[in-house]
């Protein structure tokens, strides 16, 4: 069909259309195309594709760049995040110290082979730190499906769980989620007051019928009350005045089971 000395291959056409040929080959291809309307038509269609793509998406590159996509803001945000991690690590050391102290003081009340209060509280505090700041997906199941949430988590924790109602203490249920704890599944319920303060109640199943008193740990601005009762260990975590958090802990303790 085309017995010219330098026939046009598909790669020639592509490279020509995309401006990837050297000047000599470019003008050679141009000359050959003039004699080959079918291939010229193909190249013309490709040009139209380029134009259509530019028309569709070109405006995206002319929009004002939002702050979150400005490299300097990202550098600043990264530095702030690293500082938070360092602060958290420092504070966690304090927590472990307090937790061990509390555990030692409460050793008469805890079962000897059970999970330690340190693990319980550190898991609860970590889960609280991660999810209580979440705006879009703070919970897996929202409070409008409370019955489903209770059934689901009761099944996963293999315990009948009653989700505490803390409205008398001005906290509404946001919802809950299933989490991996050191020993298996854990449940987290989140509550929020009108001012946007969030507290989370962290629940892990526990074998045996041991009970503990209400114990207390503090981590920087986060406080935790924790206890074991009727086959579950619980920790309630939040950034609240101690008395207020304690009232929530007592209300939860009373209703769980």
């Amino acid at each position: 069909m085309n017995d010219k000395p330098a026939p046009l291959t598909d790669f020639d056409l592509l490279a020509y259309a995309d401006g990837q040929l050297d000047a000599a080959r470019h003008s050679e291809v141009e000359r050959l195309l003039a004699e080959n309307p079918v291939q010229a038509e193909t190249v013309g269609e490709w040009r139209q594709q380029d134009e259509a793509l530019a028309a569709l998406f070109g405006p995206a590159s002319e929009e004002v760049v939002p702050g979150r996509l400005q490299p300097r803001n990202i550098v600043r945000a990264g530095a702030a995040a690293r500082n938070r991690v360092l602060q958290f690590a420092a504070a966690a050391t304090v927590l472990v110290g307090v937790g061990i102290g509390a555990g030692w003081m409460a050793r008469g009340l805890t079962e000897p082979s059970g999970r330690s209060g340190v693990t319980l509280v550190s898991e609860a505090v970590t889960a609280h730190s991660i999810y209580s700041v979440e705006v879009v997906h703070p919970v897996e199941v929202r409070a409008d499906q409370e019955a489903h949430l209770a059934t689901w988590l009761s099944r996963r924790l293999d315990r009948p769980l009653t989700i505490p109602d803390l409205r008398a203490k001005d906290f509404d249920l946001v919802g809950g989620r299933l989490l991996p704890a050191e020993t298996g599944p854990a449940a987290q319920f989140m509550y929020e007051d009108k001012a946007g303060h969030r507290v989370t109640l962290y629940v892990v199943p526990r074998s045996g019928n041991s009970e503990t008193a209400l114990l207390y740990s503090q981590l920087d601005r986060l406080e935790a009350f924790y206890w074991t009762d009727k086959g579950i260990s619980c920790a309630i975590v939040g950034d609240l005045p101690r008395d207020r958090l304690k009232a929530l802990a007592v209300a939860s303790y009373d209703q769980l089971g």
Partner: protein
Amino acid sequence: MTAFLDEIEALVPSLRRYARALTNNTDLADDLVQDCLERAIRKRGLWRPQMPLRAWLFRILLNIYRNDLRRQRRRPEGTPFELLAVQPAAQPDQPHRLDLAETARALAQLPNDQREALLLVALEGLGYAEAATALDIPQGTLMSRLGRARAELRRLTGRSQPPRLRTVK
């Protein structure tokens, strides 16, 4: 660091345009660009000057995009409303131009490897060497993908059959 950030900043509009075309979704595209910039800044020690910064950034963005696709996020879904609204009033004056909404739909139907390659070259104007670097494939593979992408786009927009003869200018 300052020069590095300046160079990245200059490339953000291009990354946004590419991400928009890949995902067909403004918010997902900007999330993708943000993830890309965060990773690039965190891993800036891994960048080697012999690789163009633009190709390196596109490579990072594509890796994140593919990982997200595997997790079923950011998948292009048809033609979103915002693209349909882009139809310019000037179109009737240019009967040979491709219908934009039709092109957007066709683009979304391309296999992912073809769409990634076509957009780098046709939309972002990367040369073959740079695009092949960004995609981490040999140049011959890139050209095969480009050829298939262009043919498929032509087929999907109903332009391949029958070939109409007309002058191209």
